[in-house]
């Protein structure tokens, strides 16, 4: 179940990480550039640039388990959501517009943290076309770095 806290976190200054596993039980990490879902629902929509999507999509054919980590880079507040793959489709033009808005927002933010050259290069990441993966969230875990991280919340 997606809580208000998770929606707020996804709308904060957060970065998104996706974990999948292939049929040989080999894990794989992919970055997402936009995630969204509604409070009280269990469907989460995870957008991955098509150029990065081949391996996670293949993994999800072999193993439907998926994990996503949402972490606010300004305060380290983080949650991990785990669930099952439901399907994938191309991201819509509205969703790609949001991904571009977030990329522009992050260019400024990352410049403050890591310097303007890194931020400028970060904005060169190819985010379009994009694939939207839908998953059903089944569990939520504390991921903020502190004692007790990893504990199950939902």
């Amino acid at each position: 179940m997606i809580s208000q806290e998770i929606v707020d976190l996804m709308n904060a200054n957060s970065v998104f990480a996706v974990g999948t596993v292939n049929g040989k039980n080999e894990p794989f990490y992919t970055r997402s550039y936009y995630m969204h879902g509604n409070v009280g629902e269990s469907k989460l929509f995870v957008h991955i640039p098509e150029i990065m999507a081949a391996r996670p999509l293949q993994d999800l054919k072999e193993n439907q388990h998926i994990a996503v980590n949402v972490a606010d880079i300004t305060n380290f507040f983080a949650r991990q959501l785990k669930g099952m793959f439901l399907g994938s489709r191309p991201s819509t033009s509205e969703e790609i517009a949001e991904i571009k808005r977030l990329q522009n927002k992050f260019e400024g933010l990352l410049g403050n943290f890591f310097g303007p050259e890194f931020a400028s290069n970060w904005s060169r990441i190819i985010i379009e076309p994009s694939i939207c993966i839908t998953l059903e969230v089944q569990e939520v875990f504390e991921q903020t770095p502190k004692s007790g991280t990893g504990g199950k919340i939902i």
Partner: protein
Amino acid sequence: MIIPKEILPALNGAIPATLATASKDGIPNVGVMSQVFYANEKQLAISHQFFSKTSANLKENLRGHVQVIDPITAVPWFIEVELDHEETSGDLFEQMEMQLEAIASMCGMEDVFKLQAAYVFNVISIRKGDEVLRAPE
């Protein structure tokens, strides 16, 4: 697999890394790592601070997938690893502890980031992901 020297800037701890692991039942876990450290030409070490699920997964499935990012070019590196052993003392542990203290100081986490162990991984493959960036204009 020999670790290319070109990756070294991405291992300086400036940009947090990410590690994916999997349980024996095939359930993934993905966590942000403070530190991926060059141990030797074939091994990388990752700081174990408090990532309980990652540690549990690595006890039953040694494989991991790491991403580190060059702090200037923003080019990601994708690294397949397999846990070799862990260290809780010695030169490597002390070097990592010192670097972790510097990282913690930079991000105001001195009271939180405490090194529990250095997880030493054999590198299976390394791929530079420069295809994900457009050419500079």
